[in-house]
């Protein structure tokens, strides 16, 4: 976990500082970049004396006032009850219901992507189509999310919510834009590296003002005179959408059919414009030839002055000819350097390779006032075009403040084999670092811990350690939740954590005086010492109340009772009672004797056992044989001796003064012993008689 807590003595109210946006490359570098940590002020006068904090679940700190270092004899001087402040960060967007859908929906895709890897042992080139499928799945979820965000923004009742959603719309529009560019450049990477067709699709998909202009123009009474008419046509041409441009052109009524028809001429050029598509079996050289041919024809018609009379058509023709100046003239229509880049490449260099894109960038950026004015989004796209993935991810994480995007993108690129060379001096690698942070933000959410746990599974180096910490700290409100957390532990073979969860639940049940429930938790985790403790509680409950609770459980312990000796004794002792109740005196007596002679019963319980033997000794029928009676007498002597020992008289340990039996208790016990002795003697006499008479 990355995070620093600063205590600044110069500020009257101590402040907790932490970076809200931790860029992918770690903290130190952030500060080198001059990014200031964000300061949050907690207004609590007590914090003046000092401040201390503990990590909570994920991006959460519990901050409280404390002396540093704690000094003996120095009181805090706080009169009213001290406060604990909870500081959270980076969890806001997780609370947005639409983003939660995105998180859950992409979780499935993410896991499928991880599992898909080992299935295909084939080379990377064969995996490409599958990987781009995954990329498209992600993108379709982003798109769905974006649409819902837009709907929510429109439907928002108050400005604050609308603004919030507006912000998210902005972020996810950028996410979609960056993702699709990365998909084209890194995931799909077509044979031969010709990317223009994809880039055109990219521009078409994200920037559809042309359709808007066209709609405005065509819905007016005189489309050709509408302001947007030519803008729409230019944009269509710039995006390589010849058919749409031709349709719009045909609406112009000033077109004179009788004289030389320059409209027909431009229409023909647009119609004949060749496109390079992969799947038509056309070779690059073939296309290049066709293209030159077509563009030569454009240039010829332009230089022959065919469009001199119509400035607008002339502009179109200049675009088709790939005239550099015309793109500068139209830069207000293309709006951004990257759109200009695509348009320009379409007419100047249609067979450009992905790796060569960066050489064409500068001119376009210069057209829009140069590098200095580039915004963060531009920088990200630029870095992508320059194939600097590290930079893409770094800039994205600081711009978007959103771990979802960078974590998934980094993972996808990692799966494509594009990210292998990046190893970091902290953490294991960039992918894992980002996944850890994304998972941490999920773990900070009260409800998304299952999704977070699943992401941590795919962080080979640190995931498990993180997960252990998180799972241990999850609040367990209900048994069902405890069972689910236990299941997550068992899945990953985290014995210690599951043990401690069972213990927590068991102790909680114990506090609620639900001994049966507590015992079932102890049995579940095979916690022998806790089971022994609980068995003792059952026994002392029996001694004080003269009966057992939780009979349904005790009677059906079965093989579970072997977990601890004490529990076995408890189970057997209860069995003795049952046999007694069922008038099975003979077997009851045998069981009782067995409990005493094989030393299964704790010594302090012997007297109770012998007292239980009384009714059996006094029954009409002789139950204990002479041999058995001798053994009982042996036990009786054993405890009478121990009653005289100092350990019994003065407590087992020196500190156990309160356990020391009172005078009255000693008297009662002495009477009991005498009674048992008498009963044993009488039984012995009867047993000798009956055994003698049998012979």
């Amino acid at each position, binding site marked *: 976990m990355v995070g620093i807590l600063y205590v600044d003595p110069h500020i009257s109210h101590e402040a907790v500082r932490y970076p809200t946006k931790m860029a992918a490359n770690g903290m130190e570098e952030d500060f080198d970049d001059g990014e200031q940590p964000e300061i949050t002020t907690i207004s609590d006068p007590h914090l003046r004396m000092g401040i201390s904090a503990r990590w909570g679940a994920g991006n959460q700190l519990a901050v409280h006032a404390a002396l540093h270092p704690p000094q003996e004899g120095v009181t805090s001087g706080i009169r009213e009850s001290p406060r604990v402040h909870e500081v959270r960060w980076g969890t806001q967007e997780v609370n947005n219901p639409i983003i939660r859908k995105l998180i859950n929906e992409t979780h499935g895709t993410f896991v499928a992507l991880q599992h898909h890897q080992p299935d295909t042992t084939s080379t990377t080139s064969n995996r490409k189509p599958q990987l781009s499928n995954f990329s498209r799945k992600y993108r379709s979820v982003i798109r769905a999310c974006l649409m819902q965000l837009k709907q929510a923004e429109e439907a928002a009742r108050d400005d604050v919510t609308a603004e919030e959603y507006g912000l998210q719309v902005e972020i996810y529009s950028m996410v979609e834009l960056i993702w699709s560019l990365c998909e084209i450049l890194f995931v799909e990477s077509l044979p031969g590296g010709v990317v223009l067709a994809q880039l055109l699709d990219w521009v078409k998909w994200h920037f559809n003002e042309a359709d808007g202009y066209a709609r405005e123009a065509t819905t007016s009474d005189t489309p050709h005179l509408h302001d947007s008419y030519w803008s729409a046509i230019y944009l269509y041409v710039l995006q390589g959408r010849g058919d749409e441009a031709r349709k719009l052109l045909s609406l112009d009524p000033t077109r004179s059919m009788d004289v030389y028809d320059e409209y027909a001429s431009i229409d023909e050029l647009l119609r004949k414009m060749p496109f390079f598509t992969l799947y038509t079996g056309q070779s690059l050289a073939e296309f290049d030839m066709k293209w030159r041919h077509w563009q030569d024809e454009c240039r010829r018609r332009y230089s022959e002055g065919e469009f001199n009379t119509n400035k607008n058509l002339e502009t179109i023709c200049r675009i088709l000819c790939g005239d550099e100046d015309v793109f500068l003239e139209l830069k207000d229509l293309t709006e951004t350097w990257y759109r200009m880049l695509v348009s320009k490449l379409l007419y100047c260099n249609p067979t450009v390779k992905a790796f060569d894109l960066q050489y064409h960038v500068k001119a376009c950026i210069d057209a829009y006032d140069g590098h200095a004015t580039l915004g963060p989004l531009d920088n990200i796209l630029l870095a992508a075009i320059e194939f600097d993935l590290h930079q893409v991810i770094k800039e994205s994480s600081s711009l978007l403040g959103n771990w979802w995007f960078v974590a998934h993108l980094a993972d996808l690129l990692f799966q494509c084999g594009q990210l292998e060379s990046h190893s970091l001096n902290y953490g294991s690698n960039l992918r894992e670092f980002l996944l850890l942070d994304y998972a941490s933000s999920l773990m900070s959410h009260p409800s998304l811990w299952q999704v977070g746990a699943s992401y941590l599974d795919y962080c080979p180096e640190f995931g498990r350690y993180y997960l252990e910490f998180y799972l241990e700290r999850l609040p367990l409100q209900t048994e*069902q939740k405890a*069972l689910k957390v236990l299941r997550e532990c068992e899945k990953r073979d985290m014995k210690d954590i599951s043990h401690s969860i069972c213990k927590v639940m068991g102790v909680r049940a114990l506090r*609620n005086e639900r001994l049966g429930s507590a015992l079932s938790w102890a049995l579940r985790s095979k916690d022998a010492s806790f089971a022994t403790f609980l068995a003792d509680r059952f026994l002392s409950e029996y001694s004080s109340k003269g009966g057992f609770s939780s009979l349904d459980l005790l009677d059906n312990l079965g093989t579970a009772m072997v977990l601890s000796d004490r529990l076995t004794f408890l189970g057997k002792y209860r069995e003795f009672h049952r046999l007694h109740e069922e008038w099975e005196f003979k077997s009851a007596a045998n069981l009782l004797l067995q409990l005493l002679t094989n030393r299964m019963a704790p010594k302090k319980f012997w007297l109770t056992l012998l007292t239980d033997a009384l009714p059996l000794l006094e029954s009409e029928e002789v139950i204990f044989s002479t041999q058995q009676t001798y053994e009982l007498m042996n036990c009786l002597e054993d405890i009478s001796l121990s009653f005289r020992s100092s350990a019994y008289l003065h407590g087992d340990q020196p500190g156990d003064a309160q356990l020391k039996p009172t005078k009255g208790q000693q008297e009662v016990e002495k009477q009991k012993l005498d009674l048992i002795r008498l009963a044993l003697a009488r039984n012995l006499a009867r047993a000798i008689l009956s055994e003698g008479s049998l012979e």
Partner: protein
Amino acid sequence: MAETIAEFVSEKVNKIRWRPQGPQALQQSDVFVSGSWDNEENRVRLWHLPDTPVKTEGVAAKGQLPARAVEPRLLCEVPHQGDVKDLKFLDYDKILAASSTGNVTLYKHHHNSQTLSVGQTWESLHHHGGRGCPCTGLAATLPDIVTVGEDGRINVVRVDHRAPIRTIDDADSCTLNAVSLKAFEVITVNSSGQLKVFDLRRPSSEPTRIFLLSGERIPLHCLDKHPGQPHIVATGGQDGSLYMWDLRQERHPVSAMDAHAWDMWEVLFHPTHPDHLFSCSQDGSLWHWDVSMTTATPLAMATPTASRSLVFLLMKRNRLKFSSICVQFLGTPFPSRLPAASQAQSSPWLLAKTGKQKVEVSSLLLDNIMSVNSLDIVGRNVVCGTDGEAIYVVRNINIR
């Protein structure tokens, strides 16, 4: 052919129930209620499932509209205190909800304004010395409503009575996880593998009978009674197996069938076609069990039992791949101590263990990985809710 519709709902769904048909309605129910858990603010939500529109051919691949039109639409919602542990429609417009706070709340659905409102709340029905503890299950045959909880208590309440009319305090020493009620007979399952039957007519708080799993004490999470033959009870528990009990007979289940990899959270008989059964699990699967195909001649007993576990092993391994597997159940870990004649031809579910009955199991969700917490079935439509914050509706299931 079955089709699956998924809707992400931004909350983990713990319980889901179809609404029973209205008084005049002829077609099957298209409204269901869902309850969330583990959220900062949990909710009870009512959903409407629109009819499948006529398939329009040639719709653009990117077009979202045809896909969205059949997804469940939110009708109304109401905040709920604590996790929603169980839901039950008392009738057409009354929903009973059990909470992890120990409260049980009756919600009324107002059709005209499409709102849910609180009709009545029984506070802390389940508690440890006054402090509320989760109420885990509900059952009702009006006017009686029975609730069970982690405190091992059974409460009988009635609508319009503020206090419970009967409370059995120490019904169980462990947590009671689910309950079923028929006339005066209450059946519960607990977290130490026991199934208990209580008779509400008797004054004693002792169960009339206790049934238990032999061997390991596996917590049981859910139960359902056969709609036609109330002595047949299906339960599922922590090990994911399906246990069939015959309440007229043994102390132990009649059959145990290895099923899901992890905890089975809910099991339900089809209300009108009881030869079909549905179960869902923590491992993310939703299964349809079918015993309607009776084989005329008993199968040769030569097939070793091992093959059964092998098939299941394969099923577990390829959990996400198989669509339908036929399984022959032969033998059972619980040897019958009763003469075979006494259970002859009683129900295909009880025959499943003798090898005379063919059980066909098919998986209804193929790509889900998160726990399926609840399911409900009406007609040929199954609805289920998951920890992946999704509701799945599977339409047109093959029911013979």
